[in-house]
């Protein structure tokens, strides 16, 4: 996608964490995702030289308190996605298996653990961490994974324990998580060796909230027919709301992207030429096969207009209260999509089915991610009962392409599309 420049950003580095002046790069146009990720990773990799601290953090972890203290957050899961997308997953997973890790272990964990020992992958490994921050709101796997890495790098590990929210959020949970945020702040102070800057945290909180709302607005544009963007585009543009939420960079990028999408909507441009069928995607993308899948669906005039994955980074804005960011942040991070009961997940899925007006649901049964895949059979059943739309289950893995069988997946998609076309034809 071309970036048309509204003159938003000239000097990118200045914005990064508000103090990366040394790295300031000149961009004639608004920087692309690739530019931004390059700057982000080179900044993280030169942290030792620039005297900054690096924290590795789980994708669903509260990152704002780190950014407020000038710590550079690095996401092994985002790195895992890059490894998957560059088709280096199978090799690194094999390496981890040779180290003794089971092939049932999440492939983000496998590729990260293996990568740390060889500095392999598309960017030659992640920068060495000064600390690790692990929030178990996404799964239990991250606990053991981060413990392993804490031992390997011999750095302090902070664990934020978020109780599972089967039905709602209770006072006890609120108090429990909130008290850990204080410990978290203490932990950051200790590692950084300086007093915590709460004023800055308030600013970062506002930026983060704004970024999430912008991201939601970007995703919302796909509710229009034809959709100006698909879930496959969202998988790409997602990187910043994961890695740089709470910075001005993310805000500018999404403001620019939103303007582009609105422009496409105004001009009636769909991302899938001749969009006839609209689908919803569930679970993490199959990173090594994103392009193949996108072409496969497009060949049936089908657009995956939304997904439960990229919307997870803006799914809890309803819990955020700007005036009491720290308290509401605790709740928002606890009630994310992967930390709620299956009935609640199904409710979210059904809301999305209605909002984006889709004809079918595609569920990626992801061999790696148990918390995401475990309830899918129930979600499929509930969606069938409540909305009666066809559902398709694809068995694969987000990173490890050894778990992908092209001809089997192609047959399933073709057959699924045959059913959808037939139903639409009958409906007239």
């Amino acid at each position, binding site marked *: 996608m071309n970036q048309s420049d509204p003159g938003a950003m000239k000097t990118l580095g200045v914005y990064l964490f508000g103090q990366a002046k040394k790295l300031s790069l000149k961009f004639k146009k608004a920087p692309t995702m690739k530019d931004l990720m390059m700057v982000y990773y080179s900044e993280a990799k030169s942290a030792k030289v620039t005297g900054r601290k690096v924290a590795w953090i789980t994708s669903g972890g509260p990152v704002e308190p780190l950014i407020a203290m000038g710590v550079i957050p690095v996401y092994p899961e985002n790195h895992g996605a890059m490894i998957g997308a560059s088709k280096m997953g199978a090799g690194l997973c094999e390496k981890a298996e040779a180290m003794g890790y089971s092939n049932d272990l999440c492939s983000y964990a496998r590729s990260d653990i293996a990568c740390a020992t060889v500095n392999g992958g598309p960017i030659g490994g992640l920068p060495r961490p000064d600390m690790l921050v692990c929030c178990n709101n996404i799964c239990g796997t991250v606990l053991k994974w981060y413990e392993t890495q804490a031992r390997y790098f011999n750095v302090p590990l902070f664990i934020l324990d978020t109780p599972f929210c089967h039905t709602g959020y209770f006072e006890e949970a609120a108090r429990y998580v909130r008290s850990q945020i204080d410990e978290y702040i203490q932990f950051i102070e200790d590692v950084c060796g300086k007093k915590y800057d709460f004023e800055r945290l308030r600013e970062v909180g506002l930026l983060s909230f704004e970024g999430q709302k912008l991201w939601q607005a970007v995703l919302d544009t796909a509710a229009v027919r034809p959709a100006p963007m698909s879930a496959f585009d969202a998988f790409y543009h997602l990187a910043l709301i994961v890695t740089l939420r709470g910075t001005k960079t993310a805000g500018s990028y999404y403001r620019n992207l939103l303007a582009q999408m609105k422009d496409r909507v105004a001009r009636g441009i769909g991302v899938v030429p001749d969009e006839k069928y609209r689908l919803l995607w569930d679970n993490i993308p199959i990173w090594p096969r994103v392009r193949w899948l996108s072409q496969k669906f497009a060949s049936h005039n089908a657009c995956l207009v939304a997904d439960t994955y990229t919307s997870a980074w803006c799914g809890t804005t309803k819990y955020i209260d700007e005036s009491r960011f720290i308290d509401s942040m605790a709740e928002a991070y606890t009630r994310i999509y992967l930390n709620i009961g299956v009935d609640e997940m199904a409710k979210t899925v059904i809301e999305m089915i209605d909002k984006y007006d889709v004809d079918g649901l595609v569920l990626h*049964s992801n061999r790696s991610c148990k918390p995401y895949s475990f309830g899918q*059979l129930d979600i*499929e059943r509930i969606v*069938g009962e409540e909305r009666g739309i*066809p*559902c398709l*289950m694809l*068995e694969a893995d987000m990173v490890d392409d050894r*778990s992908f*069988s092209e*001809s*089997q997946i192609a*047959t*399933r998609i*073709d*057959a699924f599309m*045959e*059913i959808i076309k*037939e139903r639409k034809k*009958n409906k007239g």
Partner: protein
Amino acid sequence: MITVGIDIGSITAKAAIVEDGKILGTKVIFTGYNAEAAGLKVYEEALSEAGFDATAVSKIVSTGYGRNSVKFADRAFTEILAHAAGAHFVNQKVRTIIDIGGQDSKAISLDEAGKVKNFVMNDKCAAGTGRFLEVMARALEVNLDEFGAMSLKSQKPAKISSLCTVFAESEVISLIARGEHRTEIIAGIHESIAARVSAMLARVGVVEPVMITGGVAQNEGVVHALEKKLGLKIEVSPWAQVNGAIGAAVLAATL
């Protein structure tokens, strides 16, 4: 109007010639490594055996894993649609189809009009497929054709708990070593297939009448185990192995 359906599966290639609701001929050959050549060969042989010339054929539809390698077909449909059309052709009342082929098994539910409502296919694993039975037949040194009849004599089927073909094979070998009777082991193998397939059926929802198609339908032991597990009668398609090809020929008539 004469139409032809060609179903290229992982093990066998099938062709069926249909004219106005009548099956004029069918042919089954091994697919081998060249799906494209197998498609042409099974087509030509089916025609010559039935005594037709290619010029008599109005439309051709291909299906199965090799559907896109049949370059001379007018259109390709997935085997889901083809099996549904084939079963509906044989018995218009059929609402649920179990298809067990060489490399996969599937459960398909149809609406009253015979249209596909939903389907589930086995995941990337040979367990519960024809390939699984072949591996077991080899381990047991029994001709696969005898599996069905032998297992019906079983008193107390052995328990095969592994879901993986490779593990199940070693389980079978250890059962042999323990002196378990072959009939019981074979019945146990059939029950393990029935357990797998009925889990898929539960996902699409079983509505009677239920028909079984695909090469494995010819194994009465599997059918019996499935009937026992599901507690209902299953109709075996008289055209089990060529059901997909017949369905493809039926679909060709609608083009």
